C-alpha cells in the first residue's frame, strides 16, 4: 500500500480515537486548558471578569464551538463524542483541502 494511503488510515484512526481527548479530561475531572477559561470560570478564579476580556470574548461565534454542535452541549458525553468525531472529520478534510488548493499555487511543476 502506498504510504499516502497508510498515513490517511493513521489520520482516520486518530479521528475515531479523538473523543479520548474529551472523555479522559471528563473522567479525571480536569477543567479547561490554562488560560482558556470562559467568562464564568474566570469570575470564579479571580472574582471578576476583566472588562476587555468581556468585550472581546464574544467577538466571534464559531459555528461548532469547542467541537460540539450547538444545542448539544448538555446532551451528555456520547453525543459530545459523536460531534467531536464529526468535527475531526470536517476539520481534517478542510485542512487537507486547503493545503491541496494552496499547493496548486505554492508548488512548481518543475519540482517534480
Amino acid at each position, binding site marked *: 500500500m502506498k504510504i499516502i494511503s497508510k498515513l*490517511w488510515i493513521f*489520520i482516520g484512526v486518530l479521528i475515531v480515537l479523538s473523543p479520548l481527548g474529551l472523555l479522559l479530561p471528563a473522567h479525571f475531572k*480536569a477543567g479547561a*486548558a490554562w488560560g482558556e477559561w470562559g467568562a464564568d470560570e474566570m469570575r470564579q478564579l479571580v472574582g471578576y471578569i476583566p472588562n*476587555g476580556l468581556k468585550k472581546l470574548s464574544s467577538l*466571534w461565534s464559531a459555528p461548532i464551538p469547542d467541537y460540539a454542535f450547538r444545542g448539544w452541549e448538555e446532551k451528555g458525553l456520547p453525543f459530545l463524542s459523536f460531534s467531536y468525531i464529526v468535527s475531526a472529520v470536517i*476539520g481534517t478534510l478542510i485542512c487537507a483541502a486547503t493545503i491541496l488548493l494552496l499547493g496548486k499555487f505554492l508548488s512548481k511543476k518543475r519540482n517534480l
Partner: protein
Amino acid sequence: MHIPDGYLGPSTCGVFYALMFPVWTIASKVVKKTLKVKQVPILAIGAAFSFVIMMFNIPIPGGTTGHAVGGVLVAILLGPAAACIAITVALVIQALLFGDGGITAIGANCFNMAFVLPFAGYYIYKAVSYKASINSPRRIFAAGLAGYAGINIAAFLAGVEFGVQPLLHHTASGQALYCPYGLNVAVPVMLGEHLLIFGWVEAIVTALVIKYLQKHSPELLTEGRKD
C-alpha cells in the same frame, strides 16, 4: 496553548499579526521554491494530523488539560516553512470553525505554534541528528528531543504573552483588562505543565512516527532534504 479572544490586549494582538505577515510571506516563498508537487499530499496530511492531534486533550487530574501540536514532526518531514503553512491552516480553521483559539489571537497563536515551534524543533532535530544515517536510532532521539523542546519554547512564549497583559492593560484601580495573571504565574504554569506532561506527549508522538517511517517509508526522511 490556544489563546482565546479577550486574553491579549489589542496592542499584543496587533504586534503578533505584524510579526506573522512577513513570516507567512517568506514561508510561502520558500515553500514555492522547495516543495515538490508530490510532497503536497503529504503536507495536506501534515495539516490534518496537526489539526486532529490538538484535539487529544490530556488531563492533569483535577486540574487543567493540554495537548501535542505535531508541528515538529511536520517540520522534520517537509521543512519548517512548509510546517508553518500547514499548522497555520490548522490553527485558522480551529479558530474560525470551532472557536478554539481567538480570532484576534491568530497572530500570537501562529507565532507560538506555527512559527517558533516548527523552526526551533527542526533545527534541534538537524543539529542532534547531524550526519546520522537514515535508520539511526539517533534520529528517533533527535525527533523526540526536538518535539519536547519545540513545544516547551512555544508554551514559554504563550506564558510570556499572557503574563505581560496585566502590566500593559489595567484599570486605575488595578483590575486587569485582559489576562489577569502576570508573568509570575503565567510563565511557570504554561512552562511547567508542558515540561512535566504535554511536552512528553509531543516527544513520544514525534519519535514514534519517525521510528515507524524509518522502517516503512525511509524515503520520507530523505526527500527534499539538503543534508
